[in-house]
């Protein structure tokens, strides 16, 4: 018994080593990971990188162009853009990560139920997921904003309610084939509870594509947050986020004369999302080689 456990461990660790090596050799994925981590680090430890605060108003330096004092310039209230990007990044990234994770959680639970039990409950859940998926996502989110009201917590709820469908589908389809496997039949014969078979035995085997989908959703939700805040229905304007910083670009005067107010935050979002996507593609190559 002891021996087999050891063997098992060494086998899994060598697979892991192989996977890590494969990932390390993927140049784009590594670049993505590095950029992602650098930006994340700078946002989390923002006070280390800037002496300015995201909220401090300075009427002596309104809409100042980038200079040595304010490397990315200041906005219409004289707030330092660099500081706002770092502090805003905290909220934007948090929204993306929490939204994607809770969406995946809903998708995993519903997908397990639909796939394992099948029948009417499966048909119903599939129908609901199709309904959610065919609605243009932006319209769906807007309706939910109208129902729940504007706010950071509500936005997180909305993102998890609109981001569960891909995970649901993947988990359900995997469950449909996995529940016929011998090991599931054995567990059932042993009299294990349905809950522990579903979540303890089958679910761990479908985690790889779920992790990949969640990563992709993080990037998607960061973009959605930016769009919603640009429209003025996302995170309340009192909280700095990447979208709220870009909201300034609604005025044609800003677009024409004050490029640093919108070009820099826009590029930061693009770079971060690009990095997450590269990282996600790399993960997919390693974890889920079937789906490419």
């Amino acid at each position: 018994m002891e021996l087999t456990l050891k063997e098992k461990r060494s086998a899994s660790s060598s697979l892991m080593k192989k996977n890590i090596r494969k990932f390390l050799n993927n140049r784009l994925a590594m670049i993505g990971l590095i950029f992602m981590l650098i930006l994340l680090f700078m946002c989390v430890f923002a006070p280390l990188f800037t002496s300015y605060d995201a909220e401090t108003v300075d009427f002596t330096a309104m809409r100042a162009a980038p200079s040595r004092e304010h490397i990315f310039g200041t906005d219409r209230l004289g707030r330092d853009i660099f500081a706002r990007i770092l502090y805003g990044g905290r909220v934007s990234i948090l929204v993306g990560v929490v939204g994607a994770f809770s969406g995946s959680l809903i998708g995993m639970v519903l997908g397990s139920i639909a796939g394992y039990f099948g029948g009417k409950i499966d048909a119903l859940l599939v129908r609901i997921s199709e309904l959610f998926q065919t609605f243009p996502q932006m319209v769906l989110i807007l309706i939910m904003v109208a129902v729940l009201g504007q706010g950071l917590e509500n936005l997180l709820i909305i993102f998890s309610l609109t981001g569960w469908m891909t995970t649901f589908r993947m988990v359900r389809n995997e469950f449909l084939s996995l529940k016929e496997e011998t090991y599931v039949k054995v567990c059932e014969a042993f009299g294990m509870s349905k809950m522990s078979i579903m979540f303890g035995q089958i679910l761990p085997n479908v985690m790889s594509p779920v992790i990949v989908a969640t990563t992709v959703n993080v990037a998607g939700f960061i973009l959605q947050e930016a769009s919603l805040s640009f429209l003025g229905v996302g995170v309340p304007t009192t909280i700095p986020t990447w979208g709220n910083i870009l909201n300034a670009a609604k005025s044609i005067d800003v677009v024409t004369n004050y490029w640093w107010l919108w070009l820099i935050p826009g590029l930061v979002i693009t770079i971060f999302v690009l990095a997450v996507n590269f990282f996600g593609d790399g993960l997919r190559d390693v974890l889920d080689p079937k789906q490419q």
Partner: protein
Amino acid sequence: MLKFIVKKLLQMIPMLLLISFIVFVGLQFTGIDPIYYMISPDMAANTDNIEALRELYGFNDPLLVRYFRWLGDLLQGNFGYSIVSGSSIKTVIAQRLPATLELSAFALVLSTIIGITIGIISAIKQNGIIDYIGRVFAVVGQAIPQFFFGISMILIFAIKLGWFPTAGRMSPEGVGFGDRLWHLVLPGVTLTLSMCAVLMRYARNTMLGVLNSDYIKTARSKGIPEWKVYLKHGFRNAMRPVLVILCFRLPMLIGGSVVIEEVFAWPGIGTILTQAVVSGDYPVILVTTLMVAAAMLVASFLVDVLTALLDPRVRIGE
């Protein structure tokens, strides 16, 4: 086939009812009291009057009664009134819908042509220069916020170069077709490019799958010219799933270009929806949502019919 179509059509009705009911009930929880939009602030102090008005307009009736009254009105062609501006929703939609249709149809057609062409060329000449450019474009296109891209277009082509107007659908003086087209180019191209990425990727992958299949090898081994293999055998089979994807994009014709409309101040349905959400104008939200839902159901109906036409197994299975 007729039976299949009728059955699918009949299935749409309960769905539409369900969606409208869910949104109707959901919007009751927003805590907006429409009565305060109907009266002047100095009248709001007199609570008796407010109660009387509530009774008059039937706001105190049970939820189901209100829902069916609203539905009945809707079926008779009475879409209700905006509680913010007081204008008839029907008139507003009649004014705004053409703008959205124009913009979306432009983008739909253009992105289909570009996306499918590039996708198929990249599949045929895999790892060629077009494939490479297309892939870079798709990756970057998925990472740029749509509105940020739109703003950059405005800065470059409208402000710096002055080739196109910065916003709007037509100039106050010019009403000709040329003027319309001139205004349409920037928002249309922005929307096109954001739609292209997905379509391109999809067309490329389907075509690659088709080109690796056995019947293509058979066709080649029979000595059929290469272009004929691609067009007659490859393209036709690759088009089925691509057509399906296209139908799923139809709901966009009504509500999918919300962000682009805002960036270019395009007077369409998307801007109405955004304004309605910002101001809590729930009758407007209700009607626009229902329109998107209807478009969505029609689209999925088309998908069903199309797949049934292309693949007899679906018909028999039903």
